[in-house]
């Protein structure tokens, strides 16, 4: 079968078809810019285009760069090339192109810039370069101080939509908190355990080859990975919105943050939330999450986290923050087992429970009780104030090995 059958002189037509296919992929969320389309055309030139299989692979290796996107690509490939294979160009009408994407690919210089932003974010206190998020000083912009205070203490469940929007700026600031760890990478230091041979030698050149100054290096502090796992099931309804906003701010902060949501099943939303435009990010995440307000099977979801992501190292050495009310509708023993497994790879496990904000709260929900022995800390999370407490805990986590013993409820 030769779905991509192309006469040798039909260069123009191939170009239009491949560009159309690129638009289809873009409409389905793949990052396909003009450069990729160009690569795809060249790749087609390098293979036997009368072979459907070779054409498929040539297009796939140039237009896809995420394993998660392969499924989407396959569906689009089948729909676009095979259905239209017998027909003429007219049959290949792609959906209307979307407005240009500000974060579209191609600019080769943009990666070092992004890396720069990441580095900057390590020092959250520094003035953020091109951060368009709220700066430390202007969180209260447009809001009277008393209103900010009120929002801080107000239970998320009682927020109006407007208040939720206002709270976003405050959430963004809280979401910048980041635990640190010692990296294997070395940095120059006034003193330290390791000799910096390069700098010592250079400075020795100034003293006729005698190393007068001995310069040192030490292991640098870098942000520790934080994995948020947020329950968006029905019982979390009023809190889930605020929590997902918090997640978005944390992910868009550009640090090493991974975000998952779960109800009946676990969904990784890191990539969907990674946009500077919070509204767009939240829309993308909402589309990706199939089970808003469904039931909860926490154990199954922690198991999915361990099996699908943990084994590849995503949770290794990470601070895992689980946000859930602990109402387990599945197997409670499974939850206990999987929490134990998670604890073996994670550096710290925190559990944020909105219900823990209620006076006299006892972790009685079966799921909560099963998970409790495996937690480092249980925190409340019903209002901004308590999320600020979470931020403080994250920042205070030790950079070296060693566990915190406490399992107390930390109140804001």
């Amino acid at each position, binding site marked *: 079968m030769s779905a991509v059958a192309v006469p040798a002189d039909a260069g123009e037509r191939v170009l239009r078809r491949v560009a159309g296919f690129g638009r289809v992929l873009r409409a389905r969320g793949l*990052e396909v*810019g003009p*450069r*990729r389309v160009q*690569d795809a055309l*060249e*790749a087609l*030139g*390098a*293979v*036997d285009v009368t072979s459907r*299989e*070779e054409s498929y*692979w*040539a297009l*796939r*290796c*140039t237009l*896809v*760069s*995420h*394993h998660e996107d*392969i499924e989407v690509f396959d569906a689009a490939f089948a729909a676009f090339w095979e259905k239209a294979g017998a027909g003429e160009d007219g049959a290949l009408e792609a959906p209307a192109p979307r407005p240009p994407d500000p974060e579209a*690919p*191609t600019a*080769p210089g*943009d*990666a*070092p810039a*992004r*890396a720069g932003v*990441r*580095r900057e974010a390590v020092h959250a206190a520094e003035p953020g370069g091109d951060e368009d998020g709220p700066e430390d000083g202007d969180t209260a912009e447009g809001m009277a101080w008393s209103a900010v205070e009120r929002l801080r203490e107000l239970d998320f469940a009682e927020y109006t939509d407007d208040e939720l929007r206002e709270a976003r700026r405050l959430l963004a600031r809280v979401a910048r908190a980041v635990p640190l760890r010692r*990296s*294997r*990478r*070395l940095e120059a230091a006034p003193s330290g355990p390791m000799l910096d*041979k*390069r700098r*010592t*030698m250079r400075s*020795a*050149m100034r003293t006729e*080859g005698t*190393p007068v100054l001995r310069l040192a290096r030490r292991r640098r502090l*870098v942000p520790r990975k934080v994995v948020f796992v947020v329950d968006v099931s029905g019982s979390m309804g009023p809190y889930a919105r605020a929590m997902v906003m918090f997640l978005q701010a944390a992910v868009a902060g550009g640090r*090493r943050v991974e975000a998952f949501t779960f109800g009946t099943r676990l969904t990784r939303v*890191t*990539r969907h939330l990674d946009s500077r435009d919070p509204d767009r990010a939240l829309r993308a995440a909402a589309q990706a999450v199939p089970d808003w307000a469904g039931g909860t099977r926490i154990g199954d979801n922690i198991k999915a986290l*361990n*099996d699908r992501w*943990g*084994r*590849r*190292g*995503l949770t*290794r050495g990470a601070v895992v923050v689980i946000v859930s009310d602990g109402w387990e509708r599945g197997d409670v023993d499974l939850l206990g087992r999987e929490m134990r*497994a998670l604890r073996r790879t994670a550096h710290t496990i925190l559990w944020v429970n909105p219900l823990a904000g209620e006076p006299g709260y006892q972790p009685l929900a079966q799921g909560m009780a099963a998970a409790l022995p495996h937690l480092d800390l249980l925190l409340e999370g019903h209002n901004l104030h308590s999320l600020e407490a979470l931020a403080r805990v994250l920042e205070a986590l030790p950079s070296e090995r060693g566990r915190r013993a406490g399992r107390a409820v930390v109140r804001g």
Partner: protein
Amino acid sequence: MARSVEQLTGALGERAYLADRGLATVITVALSLRKPLLLEGEAGVGKTECAKALADVLGARLIRLQCYEGIDVAHAVYDWNYARQMLYIRTLEASHAAGPDAVKDVFGPDFLVRRPLLDAIDHDDPTPPVLLIDEVDRADDEFEAFLLELLSDFQVTIPEIGTIRARERPVVILTSNRTRDLHDALKRRCLYHWIGYPATEREIEIVRARVPEAPERLAAEASAFVASLRHLDVAKAPGIAETLDWVAALLSLGEDELHPEVADATLGTVLKYHEDLERVRDHGVERLVADSRRSAGAVARGG
């Protein structure tokens, strides 16, 4: 360098690397477009082997850079041999021979320690080398940003010596186990290919090619057994590398087919987690062996 997908598949096959049509096509495209190729997949599916076999096919030198956390320019590109520099200076001093050229000498090629990336750029091989950047997901953001620069310009700058540009670009293969997502910018530089677990028939062929002394029956039964483990919800599914290890282990014990007791005793070569071993034993090794022997028989009859 133009060669067809069939030719490449054949040439890799002669080196006991059995590439499927997809991988062979993608490599052909990468060679023709002169773009780096990013191979992703679970551990043990043959990403690194692929680069080795390709270098052999091309008659090129394989230069391997193993990434790890904390890798930096001094480990990956170049460094100076400080001890030697110091000795040289001392010798010059002792013989009162230190002249104006001494500094130039000290920071000259004689004292330069060439690391893999410099080696791959500054080569004078008749055939450009194959540069394997292994497990790039283990390196950090800064190193990734550096790689991005290197892979767009294929040049490195050493302040004391100058800028060195590749006479002919090396063939670059990056591998990642996906312990984290790479930057999109880096991915955009590369062609992308996902290597999954092979179908059982293909895995049997791979075992036969890599462990030629293994009888067909053993190869088929072990491959079927491993394939069923991958479906059994284990935490760390075994890769092809594990199948090959296992077959080699069984051979060394003088086995020519799969027996439940020996399979059980050697299961540690395939499953590396205590929980996984327990889960499989709970499921019943005997049952799995029986199933594998049956399906291996079916494969043998079928083709």
